[in-house]
């Protein structure tokens, strides 16, 4: 059974969003996503200062076998990239909710309403 945390927002593309302050969030991929992918060997991320647009591709997470596109769950400016994942991409498998990819300053916090809560996400992946 995949782990799902309460208090996070989730996208249909299996990303989680954690609100740190009103308009600052962390983004990562869910336990379900990492287990579907298998051994993560590389995370291809944009740079600090780049803009995310909700629903648009911003990078990829790559397992041994395949590259899987990352779609932005929110829009905003990237204020920090988790550089630890460069040397330790396996953290994504080991601690999917600790191994955040990007810290983002939201353009519009209302966009969060378009995401799923933990209950809705649980239904989403049990279908």
């Amino acid at each position, binding site marked *: 059974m995949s782990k799902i945390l309460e208090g996070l927002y989730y996208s249909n593309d299996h990303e989680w969003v954690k609100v740190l302050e009103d308009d600052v969030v962390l983004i990562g991929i869910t336990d379900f996503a990492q287990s579907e992918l*298998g051994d993560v*060997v590389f995370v291809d991320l944009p740079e600090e200062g780049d803009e995310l647009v909700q629903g648009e591709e911003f990078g990829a997470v790559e397992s041994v076998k395949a590259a899987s596109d990352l779609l932005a769950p929110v829009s905003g400016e990237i204020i920090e990239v988790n550089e630890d994942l*460069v040397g330790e991409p396996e953290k994504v498998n080991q601690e999917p909710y600790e191994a955040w990819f990007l810290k983002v300053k939201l353009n519009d916090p209302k966009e969060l309403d378009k995401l799923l809560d933990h209950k809705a996400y649980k239904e989403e992946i049990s279908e």
Partner: protein
Amino acid sequence: MENLKVTPLYEEHLKLNAKMVDFAGFHMPISYTSIKDEHEAIRNNVGMFDVSHMGEILVIGKDSEKYIEFIFTNKVNELKNGEINYGMMLNKNGTVVDDLLVYKISDESFLLVVNASNIAKDYTHIVEQTNGFDVLVKNMSEDYAEIAVQGPKTEVKIKEALDIDLSDLKFFNFKEYTFNDHDLIISRTGYTGEDGFEIYGDHSIIVEIWKILVDNNVTPCGLGSRDTLRFEANLPLYGHEISDEITPIEAGLKYFVKIDSEVDFLGKDALLDQIENSLTRRVVGLELNKQAIPREGYKVFKNDKEIGYITTGYLSISTGKPIALAMINRPFTKKGTEVSVQIRNKMIPGFIRNKKFLKETK
């Protein structure tokens, strides 16, 4: 499962919680725990694959040797009984029908081991070429199950677990054995770049051997690690480095073609012509200068000009490097040529290199 076939080991795969995929019409395990762990088990210790989906085609009759010589790119007349050769079957235009192992049982009996995805096509091709030869062709694929036990500790492990002594079986040789009153064929062959054996037998004995080996801590390995292992060892995979649109010369497999011998074989004229006049591209090694993964199908560029594509590529588990096999237009096939690979929307710089990926691990 719409018409998907399963191997006799299917139930064992489910018991081991394998992640299953569709491959060549079969429901096969891609991995049991992790591709990386399975890969490393075989590089450093011992692991095994269910390869029961592979095809086995028996050719018997007075003209068998002469006939195989005609359809197979590698030498047959130098083989002794109990020896194996790797090579390809070609179309008249020199492109590859399939790559295969030929087991010489006797002058009048040969076993051909072919790719699962090509069994039907191969059988048709083989039968079509028998005109004028006194041979009989039998597709035995449903009768044989097969496992490949691979890794540096395989010989010791098989002695320990099955009490079969394989120490005098040489590389690319095979012998018949019996185990619990069942006949087996065991060959010292594989598809990983490591020492190891392939075991053929009837369905029930192969299931029994698989279970014994699992109980003796041989790591079950899926198609995922089978591909990462064969790739690092620069072993071609049909549909990638070779296909019915690619010749052995283009694939860099001339070593397995008796092009300089007197013997005539199907496709030879086309290959001679290609070598003389029209070799425009070749499979080469490629490495990226920065962390990224050059995957199958990605385009390769020189400046702004497209010059080829990746046939197989990984972030190598054994070396940690982003490496690939790529089909590249000449003259950009020269080692050291700077190229770039388009990965999503970025151009990642890299260079053409040798294909000895494993030589630099230690």
